[in-house]
Every structure is written in structure tokens, then in C-alpha cells.
């Protein structure tokens, strides 16, 4: 990934996408997943990307994470450090303990042993799993596994965190609690978060700004700031109002494809 200096007139964005196009496949079966998508995320901003199926949300995160290359356009990540990426599936390594999973990125970045142990303990404490360090992933609940995955991505210590529907598979109560946890960690660590979801309430609960994407191909069709003071509650009327607004636009976009 290229680390380019943005024009000095603009505030340096934590993540900047400019005219990003992604085509999957070749020839007749080629699918245009993203079409000239432009988006800038400010440092410390929490942006939720919302869209129906086929809007290329996951493709977008893969591109920003450097796991895939855009067909055209530029992606700049402030500081040039590859952002950490979290999936809907915790994607924990079943052969490692909880501590081993959280410590793997540290091992891969050659953190000395003593420092590693200390960092693992801190990270597990930060997701309230300090006492589960020696457990195996299969012994934990879905919500706990996702917290281990969060601690593991935080271990990368990147300023930008990419999240691909991370709470999509969790029950409502666990999800609400994890919203609180994520919001707290985001504030404490001054992270920049790019969060993909199809759950509009979740977006209204978490985001500083909601970006709505069209489907096939993915393109930014609507952007709105969420100016509800924090801490927010997912069942607050203001959150519901924004969610209703986004849902309306999302339905209009989806209906377009039925015609």
C-alpha cells in the first residue's frame, strides 16, 4: 500500500479513499463491486458504513486492510500502518489459548517475552477477560470469543480499526454490552473506527457519521452525521429516529433493484 501525503489544505485523514474501483473476476463474468468510491475518515472518527447485500462493504474493508488491491483509485492510511481488521467470525486460532491468540500479533512483531506477557494481561483486562487467559477458544461463548478477537486486534496497536459486522452473530444483550465496551475502548485509545454493518440501529448507536452505500456497484449515496450526545442507548428515541431515516433510504435503494 502506498503512503502518500495528502494535499496540505485538507486535514490529514486517517483513512482516505479516492475514486476506488474494484472489479471481481474478469471478462464476461466480471462484477463491479465498488465504483469510484471516495471517502475520508478523520482521525478519531467513528464511521459506520451501512448498505444492503452486494454493496461491497466487506470488499472495501479488505482493500483498506491491504488484503486485496483496488482495480483503480487510491487508498491512503494515515501513518501507513496496515489497519487491524475484525470479522463477524472471531477467527480465533483453535490451537492457541486465549492468551496465545492475543499474543500472536505481538510475537509476529517480535515483542520481547516479558513485555508481551504484560501487554497480553493488559489487553485481556481491557475486555474483562483477565481470568480466561488459559482457556481455549472453544470453551468460551460467542460474545467472549469476539472480545478476545477485539483484544487481539488491539494488540496490533494500530490507530485505525476496521470492523466487518463484528457483532452480527451475537444476541441482542451481548451486542448492547459490546457496544458499550467498544465505545469505551475507542474513546480511551483515540482510535479511528471504520465499522461495517447492516444493522441501522447499531450504526446510529455507535457512529459519529453514517455512510450509506448503494448496492451493485457500491457507491456512497448518502452521508449523515450523528449528533446525539454520548453515552447513547440503542433504544433511545433519537437513535431510533436516525435509524428510521437510514432505513427509509436503504429501502429506497434496495427497491431500485427490484424494478
Amino acid at each position, binding site marked *: 500500500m502506498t503512503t502518500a501525503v495528502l494535499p496540505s489544505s485538507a486535514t490529514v485523514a486517517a483513512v482516505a479513499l479516492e475514486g476506488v474501483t474494484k472489479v471481481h473476476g474478469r471478462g464476461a463474468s466480471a462484477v463491479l463491486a465498488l465504483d469510484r468510491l471516495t471517502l475520508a475518515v478523520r482521525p478519531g472518527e467513528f464511521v459506520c458504513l451501512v448498505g444492503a447485500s452486494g454493496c461491497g462493504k466487506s470488499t472495501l474493508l*479488505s482493500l483498506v*486492510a491491504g*488484503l486485496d488491491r483496488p482495480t483503480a483509485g487510491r487508498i491512503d492510511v494515515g501513518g501507513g500502518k*496496515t489497519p*487491524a*481488521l475484525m*470479522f463477524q*467470525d472471531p*477467527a480465533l*486460532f*483453535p*490451537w*492457541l489459548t486465549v492468551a496465545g491468540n492475543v499474543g*500472536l*500479533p505481538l*510475537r*509476529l*512483531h517480535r515483542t520481547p517475552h516479558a513485555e508481551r506477557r504484560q501487554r497480553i494481561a493488559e489487553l485481556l483486562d481491557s475486555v*474483562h*477477560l483477565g481470568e*480466561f487467559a488459559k482457556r*481455549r*477458544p*472453544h*470453551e*468460551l*461463548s460467542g*460474545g*467472549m470469543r469476539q472480545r478476545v478477537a477485539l483484544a*487481539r486486534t488491539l494488540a*496490533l496497536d494500530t490507530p485505525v480499526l476496521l470492523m466487518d459486522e463484528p457483532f452480527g452473530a451475537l444476541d441482542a*444483550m*451481548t451486542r448492547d*454490552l459490546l457496544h*458499550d*465496551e467498544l465505545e469505551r475502548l475507542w474513546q480511551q485509545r483515540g482510535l479511528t473506527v471504520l465499522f461495517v454493518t447492516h444493522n441501522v440501529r447499531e450504526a446510529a448507536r455507535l457512529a459519529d457519521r453514517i455512510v450509506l452505500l448503494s448496492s451493485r456497484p457500491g457507491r456512497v449515496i448518502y452521508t449523515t452525521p450523528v449528533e446525539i450526545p454520548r453515552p447513547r442507548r440503542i433504544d433511545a428515541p433519537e437513535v431510533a429516529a436516525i435509524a428510521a431515516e437510514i432505513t427509509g433510504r436503504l429501502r429506497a435503494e434496495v427497491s431500485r433493484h427490484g424494478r
Partner: protein
Amino acid sequence: MAVETLHGLDALELAARRGERSRAARAWAAVWPKLAAVGIAVAFWQVVVWTGWKPEYALPPPLAVFGRLAQELGRSQVWEGLAITGRRAAIGYAAALALGLVLGLAVARFRLLRTAIGSMITALQTMPSIAWFPLAILLFQLSEQAIFFVVVLGAAPSIANGVIAGVDYVPPLLLRAGRNLGARGVALYRHVIAPAALPSIVAGLKQGWAFAWRSLMAGELIIVGLGHTALGAQLTFAREFSDAEWLVATMIVILVVGVLVDAAFGAVDRAIRTRWGVVDPAQ
């Protein structure tokens, strides 16, 4: 408040996942069906002997064989045979292991190589090892090298196939996660692909062992006279001397080695499955 709720949820989730049987109970549950199976087989053998289907010099009764076995275990010949055969098995298997791992990794990694020899490996696996011996003897005469040649050819394809299947079936999500966490190149193999492929690799190793052991026995039956007391050679001698008791006793020794090695592989496999949490708790 939220943190207490979180801890409460954690405790509730984990409470349902307890309850295990004692070690002794599990060991007994694993052992008794095997003992019963052996008992039934021996009883069947005895019944066949009683029917007088074959004279006792061809098919000796179990008691005579077990008596002879006990007697032989008190002498050095069986142990020497075990030592010679065991050394050959270890060397041959180690060579097959090295070749199988390298070949498997190379085929799993390079598409061209897979297209070229991927299906050949499976074809080699189906080749009966005994069919290799004429060529092996031409190449290496009646020597240990000929035996090693066949053992390696018998075992390496299974090991390679285990590695290939293991690498192929690494969940793409784990690869993506590993790469995002900073594992590239060799580190990706060491920290993600190898451990994820381990169950399949162990299965390949186990199958490779079975092929190696069979090939070795075939080789020792054919190529006698090198070490007079190798287990396979003892079978040949026992047949030539029409010593059926010695013959069957030696076969039991060979079988027991197979069972013990299989048990070792089984233990490794179970250890992996327990770590990964892919053991049915009802078992």
C-alpha cells in the same frame, strides 16, 4: 453496571459447559471393547482348530502359540528381530517423513507442481508396495537399501497427501486473520498454516506409517539373509521349517507393534481434538 452484566453473562455461559468423567472411567471405556474383540477373535480361532479343518502343524491352537510366544519372549531372538526391524522402520519412516513433508508442501504451494504431479501422488499411493520390489532389487540388489527404497515409496505419498489436504483445508478466514495480524511468508506457514493443517498431517502420518510397516514386512519376507533375525525374515524361516507356532507367534508380535504405534497416533490425534474442542462431550 455494564461490566457486572458482562461478567454475569460470562458466568452463565460457562456454567453449562462442565461435567467430565474420571480418567480411570474413560480409560476403562476405551480398553474393554478392545479386550472383548481380542477375546472373541481368539475364541473363534480355537473353535476353528477344534473343528479339525486343518492339521495342527498348519494351524496351531491359541494356547500353544501363546505358550511359544511367552517362551520366545524369554529368548533374545525376538528382541533382536524387533531391534533390527524397528531400526529399519525408524530410518525408513524418517526418510519418508522428510520426503513427504517437502513434497506435500511444494505441491500445496506451487500450482504448476500440483497440476504436474498432484494426481501422480495418489496414483503412487495405490501402487501395492510389493510391486516395487523387483525394481528395487534390480537397483539395489538384495540389500537394506532396496527395503528402504520401497518403504519410502510406500509411505511418502500418504504423508504428502496429508500435508496437501491439510494446507488446502485451512479456513480462508484464518489466513486473512493471520495476514492481518502480521504473519507473512514463512511466519504465515509457521503460525497459521502448519498448526491449522496439523490434524490432517497427523492423519497422513498415521496412514504413512501403516504403508511403511507393510512395505517393511514385505521387504523382510523377500530379502532375507541380511539380518537373520529380522521379524519378516523370521516369518520366512518359520514357514521353511514348518514351525507354525513360531510363525503365528511372530505374527502376533508384528500385530502388537502395529497396535501400539496406532495407539500412539490415536493419542496425538485425541490431544489435538481436545485442544481444538472437536471432541463430542458425550463420548
